[in-house]
């Protein structure tokens, strides 16, 4: 099993959720984060002083999927989250060695 961590623009969350749903992903976890990347932050004002806020609000989605679903999921996320402008975000993939469903105690792939 793999964990896919996708860092996307907040307002793309609904689209990405729908896209993942469409390919059969049954669960995901969402975190509010702040990101720092090539995208330059906003300028904010404070009593006439300007300062750059380089941490931009982003949303992180964690999805754990079967190995077979990794590529479709990446593709789904990429399409739904892409706007073509700097700041679209990143997807990181890593291994998961075990999964437990707390309610039933099931383990492994069937618990995903």
């Amino acid at each position, binding site marked *: 099993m793999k964990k896919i961590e996708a860092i996307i623009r907040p307002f793309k969350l609904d689209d990405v959720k729908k896209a993942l749903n469409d390919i059969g992903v049954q669960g995901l976890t969402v975190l509010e984060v702040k990101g720092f990347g090539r995208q330059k932050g906003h300028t*904010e*004002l*404070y*009593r*006439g*002083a*300007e*300062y*750059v*806020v380089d941490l931009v609000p982003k949303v992180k989605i964690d999805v754990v999927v079967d190995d077979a679903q990794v590529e479709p999921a990446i593709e789904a996320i990429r399409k739904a989250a892409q706007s073509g402008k700097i700041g679209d975000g990143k997807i990181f993939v890593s291994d998961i060695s075990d999964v437990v469903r707390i309610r039933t105690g099931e383990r492994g792939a069937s618990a995903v």
Partner: protein
Amino acid sequence: MKSMRTLLTIMWAATVIMLSIPTFAQDAAAPAAPVAAPEATTAAPADAAAPAEAAPADAAAAPAAPALNSGDTAWMLTSTLLVLMMTIPGLALFYGGMVRKKNVLATVMQSFAITCLVTVLWMIAGYSMAFTEGNPYVGGLSRAFLNGMGPGEFSPLAGTIPESVFMTFQMTFAIITPALITGAFADRMKFSAMMLFMTAWSLLVYSPICHAVWGPGGLIGGWGVLDFAGGTVVHINAGVAGLVCALVLGKRVGYGTEPLPPHNLVYSVIGAALLWVGWFGFNAGSAVAANGTAGMAMAVTQIATAAAGLSWMFTEWMLKGKPSVLGIISGAVAGLVAITPAAGFVDPMGGLIIGIVAGIACYIGATALKHALGYDDSLDAFGVHGVGGIVGAILTGVFAREAISGAATKTGLIEGNSAQVVTQLYGIGATIVYCAVVTFIILKVVDLIVGLRVDPDVEREGLDINLHGEVVN
């Protein structure tokens, strides 16, 4: 615990010392002041001779025989609670929204604790020191502990309302003035130090200046300085004290290197709005009557405030590209400050101009001036209240009109009385010098006793959890 006990001892000692000072001052200074009815020159305590009184029953023509006017009393009861509302929750929120989240409770705590503290001090000695007969510098102790105050008492300064109402109304001014100062040292002062400082400041700075401007036989009032509702007593006083605090305490950790943005301007907007609403108690209430003077004071206050909000906003919009929420509310407060000394003296056009000028001047005060001089006045207590107060005091000397003030002696440059501007400058100067010197001394003494600033670690982690054991989730 230890600092706690020290604090209590100090506060007690301070009170005792304060209480003896007026007597001393009385002896020392009395011969220096041949004053002629200053209360006829400064309007706040009693503008009895307002010209608009069509119904003679409503005016207290002869203050010698005080007669209760229920309409005036109704308005002054209302004004009193409005000015209280300016401090809590108004100012508490205005300042609280501007600090970082880790300091919001400590910030609102300052306004709330000052409200409690100054109420008790005013009852014990402050009122008496400000508003009873004494010398040109400070009053006497005849009303210490509000001795003799009852439902049938009247003050010679406010003939148509009970003295209890006048005393409480003035108390709310004594509360908000020190509370304004806290903006200058937000995010870094010890709570114990603040309580000590405010105790001394209220008795040693506020009451004397209040007496000098508005009290019977007061020095500055005697010069003919025009201060309708407290530009000098409240705003210049608080602004200058704030500047001294900012200089003595030094900059916040991280100032200049990391952004220290307001954490929730919704709170600041609520605060600014309640300041605006409550300020009608402050300015129109300073007519001490429900009459045409109060009405004009309300109208010009509204106009100047709006004009200043817009002028700050448009200035920022033009210079920085965006009109900020903090900008428009800061401008509105600047307008309120600047119109305060002028409220009962200027006409609507005067109010409009004062507002426009104040918005721009305080924008400069909170940006260019602060950066040029390099002090860290966290929430611009000086930049807004000091600068706005000075601008307002001078422009009062420019725009005062007989048709509004109702007195041939209360006119400004615009009606040919250029001397008034000079008189205003004297008043400003005297207040700045006295306030700056005494504030500095008090700070140094408090620093010796308990220390002024929190540890850098405490400052970094936040005052809420460290000083008060509470956080906002």
